[in-house]
């Protein structure tokens, strides 16, 4: 029994401290792979004083439950979608607004710089959770079974499956489409039967769900960033000796902002290749066509303006 790992002993003979870290992702996703890197790094650098146990695939519940568990101290750490923290601190809504981060490198600069620092502080003020680092969960693209989407006007009347939340509903309202929330396991059949016309998710999930088999067209709209955050219980981190605290921070930075971001870009290329070779065709938008999506999404940002700190919006140039 015990909290696990009692049998192992660290270099100085005392019991290692266990860091339990959870996510809802399967073991083959970029964040899961980075977490295994995190585990190796931290166990090596701490000389066995820290051990990491990773619970993936929703073994500890969905993302909301994991966030709650980290908040209460039932888990030490979690790897969670950034948008989950909007209900703790409204400022975090910016992480899921459409076309806030126009490209990857710019997003990294924001998140590793002042915007990231602002968000971390805002979450810490509102909860017992410290956000350590921002990983890259790729960007959402549109896949559908009806027609190539060339312009936001093509969205009119299309029924697109997305995850159930207010922002997604607002986006599809702004685009004149219909958002249909539905569990991941039901999508394939729904797309096949025409219950939905398309799916709104990252290339990685378009691939793992095999949606390219039933939907023939995709457009790299990249309308929302899927940002992932490594989070830790504040009290737990504070309870560690200072050198271990630094090791946790360093290893998280290395795993989630360096290694993970490389893994996700490779995975994305692979997913796109799979989709293309299966006969799913990409429509490449011109700058003007992309701009039609960006402009049409402006009302969504306005909708959230009253609830987000103006300072943060200024930083993001909104």
């Amino acid at each position, binding site marked *: 029994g015990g909290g696990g790992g009692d049998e192992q002993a660290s270099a100085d003979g005392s019991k290692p401290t266990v860091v339990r870290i959870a996510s809802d992702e399967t073991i083959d996703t970029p964040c899961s792979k980075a977490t295994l890197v995190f585990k190796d790094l931290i166990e090596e650098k701490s000389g066995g004083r820290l051990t990491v146990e990773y619970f993936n695939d929703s073994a500890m519940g969905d993302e909301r439950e994991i966030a*709650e568990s980290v*908040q*209460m101290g039932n888990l030490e750490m979690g790897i969670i979608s950034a948008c989950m923290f*909007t*209900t*703790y601190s409204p400022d975090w809504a910016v992480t899921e607004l459409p076309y806030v981060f126009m490209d990857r490198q710019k997003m990294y600069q924001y998140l590793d710089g002042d915007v990231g620092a602002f968000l971390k502080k805002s979450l810490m003020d*509102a*909860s*017992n959770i410290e956000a350590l680092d921002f990983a890259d969960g790729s960007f959402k693209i549109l896949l559908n079974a009806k027609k190539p989407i060339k312009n936001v006007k093509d969205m009119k009347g299309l*029924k697109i499956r997305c995850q*159930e*939340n*207010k922002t997604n*509903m607002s986006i599809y309202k702004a685009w004149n489409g*219909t*958002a*249909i*929330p539905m569990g991941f396991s039901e999508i394939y059949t729904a797309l096949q039967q025409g219950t939905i016309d398309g799916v709104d998710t990252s290339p990685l999930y378009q691939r793992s769900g095999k949606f390219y088999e039933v939907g023939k067209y995709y457009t790299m709209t990249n309308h929302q960033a899927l940002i992932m955050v490594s989070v830790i219980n504040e009290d737990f981190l504070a309870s560690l000796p200072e050198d271990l605290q630094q090791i946790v921070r360093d290893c998280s930075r290395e795993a989630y902002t360096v290694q993970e971001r490389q893994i996700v870009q490779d995975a994305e290329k692979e997913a796109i290749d799979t989709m293309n070779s299966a006969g799913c065709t990409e429509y490449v938008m011109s700058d003007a066509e992309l701009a039609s999506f960006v402009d049409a999404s402006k009302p969504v940002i306005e909708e959230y303006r009253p609830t987000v700190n103006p300072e943060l919006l200024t930083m993001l140039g909104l």
Partner: protein
Amino acid sequence: METFKKIVKSYDAIEMKFLIFVMAILVVVTFAQVFTRYVMGAALFWSEELAKYLFVWISWLGVSAGLKEKEHIQVKLLPEALHAKGHLKTEKGLLILIDLLWFITSIVVLYYGFIIVAGQMETGVYGPSTGIPMWINYLCVPVSAVIVCLRLIGGMIVNSYELVCMFRRGGR
């Protein structure tokens, strides 16, 4: 004693009406979601979350209703065997023990459920689609535990009283 019975009775009536009402709302909300999606072509974004929260509430308050109606899934082989063999005192004692173990579980759930509710009032977390504060959703856990505990105390008092009477009368 009579006023006490009256209070219990009127509470039972309120509980029953409340549960019927919430279950009906649950059907209406979920069906509205289906209807808006397939007939009107637009989905409600809050119905799914609201339905989930109502479901958790009726599930925990339903525990109390199940206790009132004595419908909980229990293996009654042992108490029935004792009854059949005429060990009536042992049977009563066992029934009190069962209620006591049940009571202990509920008290633990009550205590930690209350701590969670308090923590969530402090952070002010809310449901992403409905905006309902999470502490209201968690509140069903301690509330149900309080009611279940009260019902169990009532049952234990009645059984203990009968057990004492049996001892006074003597014999098996």
